[in-house]
């Protein structure tokens, strides 16, 4: 096969906004970019179960317990959809997990921050899922079919996540002085890491060029971040929370908020593995992966023994 012809046909498809499917020809760089991005996304969902899981046994009402469990269960499901999407590209889940454990594959930085109080569960739902959904909505139009379809399902399921987080924050802001203090403290700790979730400024984003050409990425980091800030500020104000950014002000010309600079040193420090919970999150994942090995082996052995599928 003429690879030049194939590559041109590939790009033509992309330019016509047609989806690329697993069996279609695709450049190796497109495939490896997708594997990196989708597996990172999947790992983020799965590692993200930990900080919220930290509060399941302490959720303050039966309703809150059910909501939190269902939400974390969704995150697990989303990890699973994404692993499946990546598997269509020829990488196995075993390999992806191995890459996570070896440090070759990353997950979202935000989950390297601890959940210290119940308000953090509110902040994660509202701010972290709120930031994630801005990104995920734009990814519903990403060029790789299985990824786009996973995103559609995920966005549909995620719609309650942000609302439940905001509901927790709103209830606490209507509550006792201690509760309000707790909520504001959570806001203070999660605001900046939430902004960092969109990644470096457009000028400093190393993988963006090809990702745009291939329509894997449809909107830039800064565009998405701005969108998140603009919709979140009013929500904060409505329930009496202060956004911890003294430089925040409305810019009538761009019809959006100007904000203070993100602490990029912290961003890089956490990426390099020195955030508050990096080691803890990874140790947890490795531990339970290893503790589950005998169960998986038993299931595989049983299948062999019964000689049927």
């Amino acid at each position, binding site marked *: 096969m003429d690879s030049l012809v194939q590559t041109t046909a590939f790009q033509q498809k992309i330019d016509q906004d047609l989806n690329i*499917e697993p*069996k*279609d*020809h695709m450049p190796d760089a497109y495939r490896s970019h997708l594997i990196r991005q989708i597996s990172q996304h999947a790992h983020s969902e799965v590692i993200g179960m930990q900080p919220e899981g930290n509060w399941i046994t302490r959720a303050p009402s039966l309703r809150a317990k059910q909501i939190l469990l*269902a939400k974390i*269960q969704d995150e697990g*499901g989303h990890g*699973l*959809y994404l692993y*499946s999407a990546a*598997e269509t590209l020829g990488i*196995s*889940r*075993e390999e992806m*997990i*191995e890459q996570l454990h070896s440090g070759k594959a990353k997950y979202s930085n935000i989950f390297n921050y601890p959940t210290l109080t119940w308000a953090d569960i509110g902040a994660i739902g509202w701010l972290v899922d709120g930031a994630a959904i801005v990104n995920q909505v734009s990814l519903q139009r990403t060029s790789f079919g299985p990824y786009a379809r*996973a995103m559609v*399902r995920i966005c549909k*399921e995620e719609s309650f996540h942000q609302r439940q987080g905001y509901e927790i924050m709103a209830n606490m802001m209507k509550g006792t002085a201690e509760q309000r203090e707790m909520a504001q403290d959570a806001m203070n700790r999660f605001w900046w890491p939430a902004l960092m979730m969109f990644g470096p400024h457009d000028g400093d984003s190393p993988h963006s060029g090809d990702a745009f050409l291939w329509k894997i990425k449809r909107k830039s980091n800064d565009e998405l971040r701005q969108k998140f800030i603009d919709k979140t500020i009013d929500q904060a104000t409505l329930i009496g929370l202060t956004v911890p950014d003294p430089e925040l002000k409305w810019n009538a010309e761009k019809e959006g908020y100007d904000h203070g600079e993100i602490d990029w040193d912290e961003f890089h420090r956490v990426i390099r593995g020195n955030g508050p919970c990096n080691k803890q999150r990874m140790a947890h994942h490795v531990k339970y*992966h290893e503790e589950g*090995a005998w169960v*998986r*082996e038993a*299931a*595989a052995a*049983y*299948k062999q023994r*019964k000689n*049927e*599928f």
Partner: protein
Amino acid sequence: MSIDTQLDLWEVFIQQKAGGNHTHAGSVHASDKQMALQNARDIYTRRKEGTSIWVIPSQYITASTTEDADMLFDPSDDKLYRHPTFYVMPEGAKQI
């Protein structure tokens, strides 16, 4: 240490309403068919999405390739006589 297994890959087809088609919903990992069905139920019907589930090991699915799409599907382009609108009916004919 033995090589890790994440069990086998299965494809899941869900019928959303009684009488409808089963459509592809996604994949699950499982070692046997009971586990595949249960996993499909636990993962793809949490919001009442289903009335019936099919699962099949992914390895038993054969798919057509994009390269063959011209050969496979274009020949039906000009077979308009397979569609009822191809035929001219006398004016006033009813229930046909």
